[in-house]
């Protein structure tokens, strides 16, 4: 199985590897996959509470080259987008960008799941922080 140049590039030069402060109210953390499946992705976002723009994103992945590339690409794509724009990212976009073969499509699905999980976690934090109020920003 040979990899596309983009997958190799992300593997050799992964973007945004690292961690954000889990406890911060601006940070959303998504942890998806399972060690028994051979794929675990942790994707974190830091969101500007006024603009809902994702200012920072970090990832760590236990998985094959395609999984690492998918999550690295995911952090690249979500940075600079609003939370809603990031939710529009589809796994097939990742498949196309990285030229993933059919047997590796599930890696892109996991990356999409990781984005959603991180956003979901951030949203939960925003909901629980808000006092009961009608003008809750979307």
């Amino acid at each position, binding site marked *: 199985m040979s*990899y596309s140049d983009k997958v*190799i590039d992300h*593997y*050799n*030069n*992964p973007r945004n*590897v*690292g*961690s*954000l*402060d889990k406890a911060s109210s601006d940070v959303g953390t998504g*942890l*998806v*996959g*399972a*060690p*028994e*499946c*051979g*794929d*675990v*992705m*942790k994707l974190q976002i*830091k969101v500007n509470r006024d603009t809902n723009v994702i200012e*920072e994103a*970090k990832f*760590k*992945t*236990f*998985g*094959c*080259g395609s*999984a*690492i590339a998918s999550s690295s690409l995911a952090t690249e794509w979500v940075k600079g987008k609003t939370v809603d724009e990031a939710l529009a990212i589809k796994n097939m976009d990742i498949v196309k960008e990285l030229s993933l073969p059919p*047997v590796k499509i599930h890696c892109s699905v*996991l990356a999409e*799941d990781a984005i959603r*999980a991180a956003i979901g976690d951030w949203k939960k934090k925003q909901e629980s922080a808000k006092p009961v109020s009608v003008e809750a920003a979307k």
Partner: protein
Amino acid sequence: MSTDVKIPQAQTQTHHPDAKGIKLPIYMDNHATTPMDPRVLEEMLPYFMEKFGNAASRNHSFGWAGEEGVETARERIAKLVGATTKEIIFTSGATESDNLAIKGVAEMYREKGNHIITAVTEHKAVLDTCKRLEKYGYRVTYLPVQKDGLIDLEDLKRAMDDKTILVTIMWANNEIGVLQPVDEIGKLCRERGVIFHTDATQAVGKIPTDVNKNNIDLMSISGHKMYGPKGVGALYVRRKNPRVQLSAIIDGGGHERGMRSGTLNVPGIVGLGKACAIAQEDMAQESCRMAGLRNRLRDRIMNRLDEAYINGSMENRLPGNLNISFAYVEGESLLMGINDIAVSSGSACTSATLEPSYVLKALGTGDDLAHSSIRFGIGRFNTEAEVDYVADRVIETVERLRELSPLYEMAKEGINLKDVKWAGEAH
């Protein structure tokens, strides 16, 4: 606050291999297949264009030349395993030999019984053949293995009954290199009057494999695992004490004493014979050298990395095999990082079926560690310099990937990964 992790560039040339006389890429996957020994190729060449006759053409010199090549090879193979020439049958490889041995006995002895005993760690050539026989109404017992990869002889004793007609247990495992107690299995089978077949594909030519010392009745042999050609193998079939009979699985002319029809692959057979002759001569010295290189690789890696686990018994193991799981790092990503080295992994991501290694599972290795395993197969043509290079590249890649790994991060924080409720866990 964010912690930025500085990931070093993946390097493929840091160790200046040329300076050490190493040629890249390095082949260290000798359980998958082996490069042909030049002496084997030399031996084979005349049989393609000059001595090209069909070995079964009894009436002219072209046929006689082919036959002579075949019979010389037959003698060499017989000598290596302690058999007589009449007991060596040529096949297309060990997969066919396994099929012939198991199906051949099953059909021939079906009046006597319908029970076969094998082990969970066998090669698919044995397991899938047994599964097919189950469909035909045979009963198969798959013996478990212990943590070190060996079967428990008590399990074997208990499994045998008056309907057992065959025990088939491999000599050396292709993934973890573990050696089964073939001499004791043979003794037990002989006492109980049960035919004993062993798939000795990975063992022949590497360690002594005498069929009489070990009470073996049937033995599968493969050319391309011992620096010989692909597409050729042999099956040892005992003729005396007891005489073993087989139903052929390929019909068409009755070649090889009626056990395997088809024109003989003369050049291939000649190559297999030469490979056996070389192995016989070099075995003692070579197995010692292989063990030395393997131990060097093991020690260099294990001394540097923590949480690296060797899969399978070290004491009962092929001299050139090493199989290590590197916790928190997935196998395929590790292979990608050492892409100038040819080895293989027990990770699901590297298999066609997306299933992790069933051999590692049978040892009780957790799926996560099965995904993190690498199999090294050191062979005749590997050097000390190559071993050092491979060890260093593995170490550097594992360290790099651990920096990328959320599991390593969690483990360092003191989290027990077994307690975590994973999002992707199967329910």
